């Protein structure tokens, strides 16, 4: 009898974790990864941090060296875009009509940056930041430029702004909403980051929408609702879209992400999904969500491996994430969905404080700036749904480990 075969579409964090976890669990079937990129699976967070800065070699981004895959008999097919899935016959199709059959299929296709309309004439001056290739191009461009405009004041845009500012360029951030990070955090955190960017010399324009991009003899004219900004080039960071079209067109349920249950199973019995591309249930917040985070990609990768092995281990995780800008490390726990109060521990005038979001005297989320202990503690308090005394929480004379005592 031939061996069972698991195919993985995508070669990012979730794909690599699924394959590694299957191996750790002594899966004895065949494992094949198909990825459209031309690099071994690699971590993306440094792309907008140390790798953009030029402090990290490309090789140090790879999760595993090539020999890991060969030694573990995980077949990695790079530059292999999967075009179609035939769920009836359990086959995937690559270019040139090459096909491959499966017993289990894992879709870990991640996301792609949301695009803006640009004229071909200036497309060589407009960049997105998702891949090693993107960063290599941006790094080349930085060397020959003085001024850059970043469209979008989300975490990636802000991290990029901080690095490019450090590299000596003049940076302008253009944000449509009334404050940066509006979609993801509170006013308190937004104003803290606005302040540190401005102090570093970055121009932050809020309530400003981009109406068009025009070629100019120096570079690009960014036409906004508040006037024209001339820059050498533009980086766009206005969010991402889940890569769920392949699934949808193949008859798998998807709506703003591939729909999975707590075991990362899709609507098809033989197909699983993990990482940024999934729309999945979160039991702590009692709703379906899509997350763009390393932690989620890792945990869902592990969940898929468990499901393939026939172990019923459900995914139940408190989301967490981090962002590095200048000398600050922001660590985020939980989901900022609905809270009735905010408790600040420390002083937001210093670069070290924690903001806890509470509902009915329980912490539901936190943003901790250079406060790792508060971050770790809040993950525990959120998951155990512990009742807290807000005065104790904000009282710095009580060690964070003891606030809930």
């Amino acid at each position: 009898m031939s061996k069972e075969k698991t195919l993985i579409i995508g070669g990012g964090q979730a794909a690599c974790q699924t394959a590694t976890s299957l191996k750790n669990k002594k899966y004895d079937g065949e494992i094949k990864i198909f990825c459209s990129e031309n690099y071994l699976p690699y971590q993306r967070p440094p792309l907008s941090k140390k790798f953009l800065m030029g402090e990290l070699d490309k090789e140090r981004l790879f999760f595993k060296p090539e020999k890991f895959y060969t030694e573990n008999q995980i077949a990695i097919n790079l530059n292999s875009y999967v075009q179609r899935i035939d769920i009836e016959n359990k086959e995937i199709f690559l270019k040139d009509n090459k096909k491959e059959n499966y017993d289990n299929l894992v879709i870990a296709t991640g996301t792609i940056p949301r695009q803006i309309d640009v004229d071909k004439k200036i497309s060589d001056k407009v960049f997105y930041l998702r891949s090693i290739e993107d960063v290599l191009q941006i790094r080349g461009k930085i060397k020959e430029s003085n001024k850059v405009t970043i469209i979008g004041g989300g975490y990636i845009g802000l991290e990029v702004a901080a690095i490019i500012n450090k590299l000596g360029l003049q940076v302008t951030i253009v944000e449509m909403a009334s404050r940066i990070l509006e979609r993801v955090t509170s006013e308190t955190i937004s104003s803290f980051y606005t302040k540190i960017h401005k102090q570093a010399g970055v121009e932050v324009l809020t309530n400003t929408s981009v109406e068009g991009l025009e070629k100019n003899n120096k570079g690009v004219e960014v036409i906004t609702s508040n006037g024209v900004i001339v820059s050498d080039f533009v980086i766009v960071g206005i969010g991402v879209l889940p890569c769920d079209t392949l699934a949808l067109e193949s008859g798998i349920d998807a709506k703003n992400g591939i729909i999975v249950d707590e075991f990362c199973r899709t609507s098809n019995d033989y197909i699983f999904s993990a990482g940024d591309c999934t729309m999945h249930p979160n039991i702590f917040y009692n709703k379906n969500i899509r997350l763009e985070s390393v932690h989620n990609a890792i945990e869902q990768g592990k969940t898929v491996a468990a499901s393939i092995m026939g172990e019923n281990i459900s995914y139940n995780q408190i989301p967490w994430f981090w962002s590095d800008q200048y000398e600050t490390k922001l660590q985020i726990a939980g989901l900022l969905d609905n809270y009735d109060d905010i408790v600040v521990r420390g002083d937001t005038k210093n670069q070290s404080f924690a903001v806890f979001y509470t509902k009915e005297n329980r912490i539901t989320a936190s943003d901790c700036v250079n406060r790792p202990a508060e971050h770790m503690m809040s993950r525990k308090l959120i998951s155990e749904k512990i009742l807290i005394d807000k005065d104790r929480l904000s009282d710095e004379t009580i060690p964070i480990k003891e606030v809930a005592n």
Partner: protein
Amino acid sequence: MVKIIYIEHDGTEHPVDVDVGTSIMEGAVSNSIPGIDADCGGGCACATCMVFIDDEWKDKMSSMSDEEESMLDFHEYKEDSSRLGCQIPITEEFDGLKVKMPPSQH
């Protein structure tokens, strides 16, 4: 290159050659040694790269930042000899270093 011996919790030893300048965490990950997860890839944000280092070696290493200390404090298996592997760059002096790993990182 220096030789580092990574020791799993059950005593299994993995002697490997690692590049000077990379971290103790990277030395384990690039040699596929089980026992270090390194979820955040070296960002000092996850505390899943904890290792135990004997006293005799501690002095040869970069000292611990407050950040590292706080993260370690929440690790289930933390001991006095704990460090985060991603926060220790490997130097020539580490030849022969023994790095022990906890039963689990979570």
